[in-house]
């Protein structure tokens, strides 16, 4: 499973990071790092919860 990161839409809510800090990594300002995310096997449900928590809809399962 991959997650498409719409980096320009991130406003730094960090809701994804608070659920799954190992999957969703932030820069020093608290915004998501650019680039799509390859989700490790077994972490799909957690990753999906992270995607669904984004108020800006900056994350998308692809």
């Amino acid at each position, binding site marked *: 499973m991959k997650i498409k990161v719409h980096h320009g839409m991130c406003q730094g*809510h960090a809701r994804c990071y608070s659920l799954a800090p190992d999957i969703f990594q932030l820069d020093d300002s608290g915004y998501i790092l650019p680039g799509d995310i390859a989700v490790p096997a077994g972490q799909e449900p957690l990753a999906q919860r992270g995607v669904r928590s984004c108020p800006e809809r900056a994350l998308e399962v692809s």
Partner: protein
Amino acid sequence: MATRAAETIVPDHVPPSLVRDFSYFRGPEMEPTPCGHPQAALSFVHREGPAIFYAPNNTYDGRGTWVFTTAEDQRAVLNNTDVFSSNRGIFKAALGEDLPMVPLEVDPPNHMKYRALLNPLLSPKRVDAMEAGARERAVRLIEGFRAKGTCEVMNDFAFPVAVGVFLQFLGVSDDRRDEFLGWANEQFHGTLEQRLNAMRTVVDFMKSLIALRRHEPTDDFVSFLLAAEVEGRPLTDKEILGVAVLLFEAGLDTVAAAVGFDLYHLATHPEDQQRLRDDKDLIKPAVEELFRAYSTIQMLRTAVRDFEYKGIAIKAGDLISCPTMIANRDPAEFPNPDTIDIARDNNRHTAFAYGPHRCLGSHLARRELIVGLEEFLTRIPTFRLKPGSTPITYGGYVFGIENLDLSWA
């Protein structure tokens, strides 16, 4: 009577069918109400009437606003910063002093240079480093009343937590807490005259603090601002003052209100309280759900030019209110929005706003709430409203609770 006239002023471009008798300040549940539920009281707007309407007297000083009720429409406003400016000149209107609160009242693209400076100070990682101090403060407060078997949450816990963080940020001694509480109380909940006086007092305090730190820098927030640069130049005094004042405006009442509403909920929903006691991992999602259900603020924007949205003519100068507590109970966004489900998944609430002005302090506020609930539930046995006591809730500019007496065996 002037106030009477203000209630009935509807601009010519507003069609009568879109005018609604609605106010955050007047009427049942918005005025101080025993055991009220001000957020729930407003969710009726999703069941009847237009999704976008005009409320002729909907600010503390009697101005009319548009009210955008759905999450989708609020997103459209908050993302369109070219049309909907957040520079309302709050202090200019109130005090005659041109003092934009930074970065709240600065529109993109300028906004981003201030956010780039301030974001790292309040990032999730930085907040990790502040957690120990927040926990220690919470523990000290709780241990101060635990043996009594009772506490008044707002004075004994919620405000001291909120003000403690704030004073720590400013490097100001904790013994000035009551003074700050008084200013906050008058500014957010006082009469018009009290509000203006409190605003002036806060501005003067910050001015003198800036002057002090300029001569004797410490490792506090103001000293950081004095040493900081944007676009290769130091911040101006006005910019520093704008940031410092915003910290006061945004960080006190809101955090205290959230602590109050969360404990009010747990005191009156023993099944939720027990679930959190049984499974501490639920505290995090519960805090998010309680942010959703008990959101306290509205985003207010000013149209800088005429604009048509979904067939509605909005004129330059119109105020547009985007209440979080209403969008967060939008049935198109949240299944069973009036049901509070502390394990709710898929919870894209906007209690901390949305778009570029997303609350700068949101990560710190979350952590304060999580730490506060963790320690409260660990150290205090099953609690309930103190028999014979009546919490008073209210609406207004920041929704809140006046008093919350709890007791435990």
